[in-house]
């Protein structure tokens, strides 16, 4: 499709830093028509100034218009596209090749990012924070544990993406087949299931402890507290089965809001 990608042309550190910073605002003007398109142009813009004629030159304007057109991807993995597209523009790749690359990358960058981050890394780190909460950690520990863990993956993925995009250019697609990226969602998924199981009894115990009746704490819990904790855990298991069966018809949070409304009404009416 494209010629061999040699080593990338030099790009000032300042421009790279500007691109990386702008990646964090890549969804700033997200809309249903061009989706992430303007964000791609926004993130790529500092590097496009290196084109002949500089900012405002014909090459710059044509490239910026092209990069601001429709694009869709996971916001973190869009960094791969930004790096690759900037490299292609600065290398002077034919517009048809760049357009084809943009069209081809939308699907893979979206689905991989959704599986890796939204369905993997985010639940994993949230469950680790909830586990810490269930084990008695304080507010600052819980918050910082989640934020640090999550953002090691988040910031690291954006940095990895722009680095590999820049170095791989239009041939960067091969990087997305890396075994770590393909296998990680599988292993994270198993860890998430295990953590979920561990989190449920511990969080239930701590929430009930906040009611002033610490249940299932050896030697301290009252029989009422223990009963409440067991009832909550069994109730959660039964309800989750119902929520799973309702999937496709009612989302869990919608069912939850109805159940809570019923609870509030019952408490007021009785």
């Amino acid at each position, binding site marked *: 499709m494209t010629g061999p990608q040699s080593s990338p042309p030099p790009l000032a550190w300042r421009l790279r830093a500007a691109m990386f910073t702008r990646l964090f605002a890549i969804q700033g003007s997200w809309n249903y*028509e061009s989706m992430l398109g*303007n964000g791609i142009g926004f993130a790529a813009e500092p590097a496009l100034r290196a084109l002949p004629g500089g900012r405002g030159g014909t090459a710059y304007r044509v490239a910026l218009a092209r990069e601001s057109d429709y694009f869709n991807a996971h916001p973190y993995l869009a960094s791969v596209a930004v790096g690759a597209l900037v490299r292609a523009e600065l290398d002077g790749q034919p517009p048809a090749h760049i357009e084809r690359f943009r069209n081809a990358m939308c699907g893979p960058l979206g689905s991989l990012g959704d599986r890796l981050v939204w369905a993997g890394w985010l639940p994993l780190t949230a469950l680790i924070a909830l586990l810490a909460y269930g*084990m008695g950690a304080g*507010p600052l520990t819980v918050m910082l544990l989640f934020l640090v863990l999550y953002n090691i993956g*988040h910031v690291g993925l954006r940095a990895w993406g722009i680095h590999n995009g820049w170095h791989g250019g239009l041939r960067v697609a091969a990087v997305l087949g890396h075994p770590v990226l393909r296998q990680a969602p599988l292993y994270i998924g198993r860890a998430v299931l295990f953590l979920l199981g561990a989190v449920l009894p511990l969080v239930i115990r701590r929430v009930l402890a906040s009611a002033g009746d610490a249940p299932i704490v050896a030697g301290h819990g009252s029989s009422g507290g223990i009963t409440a904790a067991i009832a909550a855990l069994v109730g959660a*298991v039964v309800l989750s089965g119902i929520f799973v069966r309702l999937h496709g018809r009612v989302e869990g949070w919608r069912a939850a809001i109805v159940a809570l409304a019923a609870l509030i009404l019952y408490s007021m009416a009785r």
Partner: protein
Amino acid sequence: MAPALLAPVLLGALIGLDVVSFPQIMISRPIVAATLAGAVAGDIAAGLLAGAVLELMAMETLPVGASRYPEWGTAAVVAGTLAAVRAEPRSGALVVAVFAGIATAWAGGWSMYALRRLNGIWAERMQPALEAGSWRAVVGLQLRGLTADLVRAALLTLVALVIWRPVDAWLLSRWSLDLVVSHSILVAIAAAAAASAIWRLGHGATGARWYLLGGLAAGVVFAVLQ
């Protein structure tokens, strides 16, 4: 604006911005946002409690691209603030705070949909300049969207708190259920929402049932022995 509302509204604005627009470092996750709101309102532990329950609920929805989903960031600020304004644990306070949070999350989802439509209108109006490769148009559109999202989140937090503070007080004055019973039912519902969401994500994996049961056994043993 009443001084008591200023701090949570500013926090809600920043946290609402984090949900999608900038910088998505996940200060908008309920376990962080509600805890911060609790700290601002004077009871960080109450904020964390509301945040943990909402975090379980939020496992249900993934912020996937074009889908419309509840906005848990400002929702958690509202829930954390309401949970923290009570000086001491009060029966029903957590239930009502979480309920207000979910209702705000639902409204927040609609406000994000409206913002995205607005961004689309602005982009369409600026289409000639965008097609001409104007950097002012590209940067301007981005900054306009970011600012609008900040304002959206601030207004949502303000409106939600103005509505929910008196409603919260009214509901709690009539609350009759015991504190432990209220918390038991609430946490069971939240845990069920999380469990069903995670199970749907991971049930296809080999041995999924055993990973879940293994974790459950470990959690129960730890809870009993700790």
